[in-house]
C-alpha cells in the first residue's frame, strides 16, 4: 500500500470526557470527544450513576439522556445551543409522539440537523431511547442579534 500519510500533520488536542458510566470502560469509548471546536457525544441512554432510570417511561428516559448529553457538552466547553446534529434511536417508533415534543422543548430554537429512526434493540432491554449529538463549540445562534 502506498504511504498516504503527509509529512506534516496539524496536531490538535483530543479532549476526552467521561461520565463515569460502567459501559465506557468495557466498550472502549468516551462519553464525548472534543477536537478543536468539534464535539462528538456518544450515544447516550437513560443511565444515571450506572443504573438505568425511567424503566417503561420514555419521557423520563429522554430527559435523562439529554441531561447526560448536556453535562458532557459542558465538560467539553460547549452547550446544547452548539449542537449541529442529533440522532435519535428508538426501540418503538410510536414513542416518537412523546419524544419529539421534548426535542422541541430543548432544540426548538437551536434547530440542528436531526435524524430519528427505530432500531431493533439497544444494549439493554429496558432502554427505550438512545441519543447522540455532534456540536461545534461557538456555533450557537447569537441571541443578541
Amino acid at each position: 500500500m502506498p504511504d498516504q500519510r503527509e509529512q506534516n500533520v496539524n496536531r490538535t488536542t483530543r479532549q476526552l470526557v467521561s461520565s463515569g458510566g460502567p459501559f465506557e470502560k468495557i466498550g472502549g469509548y468516551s462519553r464525548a470527544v472534543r477536537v478543536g471546536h468539534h464535539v462528538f457525544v456518544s450515544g447516550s441512554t437513560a443511565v444515571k450513576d450506572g443504573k438505568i432510570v425511567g424503566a417503561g417511561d420514555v419521557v423520563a428516559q429522554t430527559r435523562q439522556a439529554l441531561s447526560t448529553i448536556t453535562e458532557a457538552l459542558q465538560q467539553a466547553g460547549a452547550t446544547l445551543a452548539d449542537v449541529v446534529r442529533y440522532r435519535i434511536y428508538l426501540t418503538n417508533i410510536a414513542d416518537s409522539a412523546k419524544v419529539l415534543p421534548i426535542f422541541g422543548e430543548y432544540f426548538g430554537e437551536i434547530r440542528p440537523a436531526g435524524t430519528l429512526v427505530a432500531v431493533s434493540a439497544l444494549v439493554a432491554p429496558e432502554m427505550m431511547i438512545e441519543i447522540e449529538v455532534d456540536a461545534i463549540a461557538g456555533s450557537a445562534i447569537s441571541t443578541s442579534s
Partner: protein
Amino acid sequence: MMASNLPRRLITLDDTSEPPANFSPAVRVGDHVFVAGMVSMNGGEVVGQDGVVAQTRQALDNVETALLRAGARFDEIVRYRVYLTDMSDLAGVRTVLNARFGSIRPAGTLVAVRSLVLPELKIEIEADAIIGSALRDDNA
C-alpha cells in the same frame, strides 16, 4: 455566500478495485475523514461467516485500511457507530471494541438493526476521524 475550495478525496480500499457506483469507502476533506459503514468482507467475499468476533475484527481492519489510504490512522478516530443484527452478540463485540478502542476512546454508538445488506453479515461499523487528533502523537 462564498464557498471555499476544499478538495474532496474519494478513497478506495485498494488500487485495483473500481469504486462502488454510489459511495466511497471513505471521503477525506481537509483533516476530516468519513469512513463508510464497513462489513466483514475481503476481496468481495464475506469472511468470518460463523462468528461475530471475526466479523468485528474484519470490519475494523477494513475501517483501518480506508483510514490509512486516506492518510489517517486508526487512533485518530473520533466517533464510531456499530450496527449489529443481534444484540445477543454484544459481549463478543465489546471484547473486540475494547481491545481496539480502549486506549483511543472515541465517541461511540451501538445499536441493533433489523438487517444489513447481506444476510450473512452480523455487524457494520462506520467511523469519523480527524487527522492529527490522536492522544499519543508518536510517529505522527
